[in-house]
């Protein structure tokens, strides 16, 4: 293992039942970097995050985080490792029955013996980092989508993790919230010395903030490189994805019988 690599994925294969999702993935994430995992819906990006978090185990291959083989850990070991990880879910996954403050304080209360005064200060610092110190007493139902995502980000970094995973952090956000979230991911990674793994569809926003990109298609990594390399890539799939073209290696039409047959044009003529 390279000392600089926080996450290492080696020949990982995974499937849901008989349907293969990942077919031999090799990927690394260097410490202090923002890494993007891109690809069309259903290509296995979120599955990769779940493998790294130990929520599922690969059928084959190894997933290592900070030198520990995630798929070989028991529940105690896994929970110990997860205390050093943060995860931002697609829609925040905030606990709806407690306030913003209590959401951010949740892990601190569960995993530390810190006095309530210290917890208060830490929570306000984390909320200040995402610009929502003033929203501490609001309930999750009172937040906009972008604010909920930022609170979830404050909660994810509450225990100062070494790795933060983001599942579609830009989905459904207005341009202002999108810019704020992107900047936060970059700024928090740099200032807290984190490693960030971002699963996203949003090409333009992520190209601005990431250090390295992996493109996943049909369960394999089809391209990788820095933002500049990806933008200049001549690979048809990457070109279609980056430029948002409707047709290409990923066809516009779902596989179907010939159009004329479906409309029974031949039968009418006969």
């Amino acid at each position, binding site marked *: 293992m390279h000392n600089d690599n926080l996450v290492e994925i080696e020949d990982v294969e995974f499937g849901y039942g008989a349907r293969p999702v990942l077919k031999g993935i090799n990927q690394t994430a260097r410490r202090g970097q923002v890494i993007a995992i891109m690809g069309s819906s259903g290509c296995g990006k979120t599955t990769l995050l779940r493998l790294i*978090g130990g*929520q599922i185990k690969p059928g084959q291959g190894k997933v290592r985080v900070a030198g520990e083989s995630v798929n070989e850990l028991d*529940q105690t070991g*896994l*929970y*110990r490792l*997860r*205390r050093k*990880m*943060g*995860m931002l*879910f*697609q*829609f925040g*996954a*905030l*606990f*709806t029955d407690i306030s913003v403050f209590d959401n951010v304080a*949740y*892990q601190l209360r*569960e*995993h530390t013996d810190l006095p309530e005064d210290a917890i208060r200060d830490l929570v306000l610092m984390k909320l200040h980092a995402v610009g929502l110190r003033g929203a501490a007493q609001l309930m999750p139902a009172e937040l906009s989508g972008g604010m909920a995502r930022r609170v*979830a980000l404050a*909660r994810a970094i509450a225990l100062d993790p070494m790795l933060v995973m983001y599942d579609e952090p830009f989905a459904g956000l207005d341009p202002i919230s999108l810019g704020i979230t992107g900047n936060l991911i970059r700024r928090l990674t740099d200032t807290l010395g984190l490693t960030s793994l971002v699963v996203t569809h949003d090409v333009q926003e992520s190209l601005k903030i990431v250090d390295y990109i992996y493109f996943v298609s049909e369960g394999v990594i089809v391209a990788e490189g820095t933002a500049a390399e990806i933008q200049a890539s001549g690979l048809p799939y990457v070109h279609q994805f980056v430029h948002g073209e409707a047709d290409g290696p990923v066809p516009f039409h779902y596989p179907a019988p010939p159009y004329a047959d479906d409309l029974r044009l031949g039968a009418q003529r006969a």
Partner: protein
Amino acid sequence: MLRQSIEKLGHRTIQGVWRIGFAARFFLAVLLHSGTAFRRFGLTIREMYFTGVLSLIIILVSGLFVGMVLGLQGYETLQTYGSEEALGVLVALSLVRELGPVVAALLFASRAGSAITAEIGLMKATEQLSAMEMMAVDPIARVVAPRFWAGVISMPLLAALFSAMGIFGGYLVGVQLIGVDEGAFWSQMKNAVDFEQDILNGVIKSVVFGIAITTIALFEGYDAPPTAEGVSRATTRTVVTSSLVILALDFVLTAFMFRGLS
């Protein structure tokens, strides 16, 4: 056609057996992870408020009306034999042995069981349970076990309150409205109701019902497909399954508890 039907039947049977096995493992996991529910008893007390205290109105009002109906119907039957004074015995035994535990359990399943399933199901659908797991917090220990023990503790208390309210309803109708002798009403009740055979057995029944309802409600929520339709169906299944299980368990428990009693 026949082959398809048999295949479908076989598939459903296998699914059913698999689900029962999963539910049994879930129940064992809840018991094994119950430490948090007692170490941090505040979590259980908070859930007791939601499942128990918030069910009080429906339990007390229903108990009162059931007792009043028992008073009316009981008096009607007993006066044919000239035994109106035994109305207190009839009302009390009906309530503490059967109606208290069973009707309170049915109401508890509808009011609290459905709420538990919907809450857990929505927590799953909105990834709150996954978020908890990713924060190294075990949802079974932190979310499920406190709700389980809150239900198990609340159920006998609610059944006792239902019976007490029912007896009061029977008293209102029998003694205050119809005019049955008050002394006979209470003294005959006191002589006829046995603490161990009647009251304790009623409590045992309601504890068993509490375990059954909360297990079903929690399992259905935890196992619900993470969609609006999935949660809705799981909530319905909780009420239907709990009601049938309560009635079936009541028969089995009654057969064991009250056989041979005169």
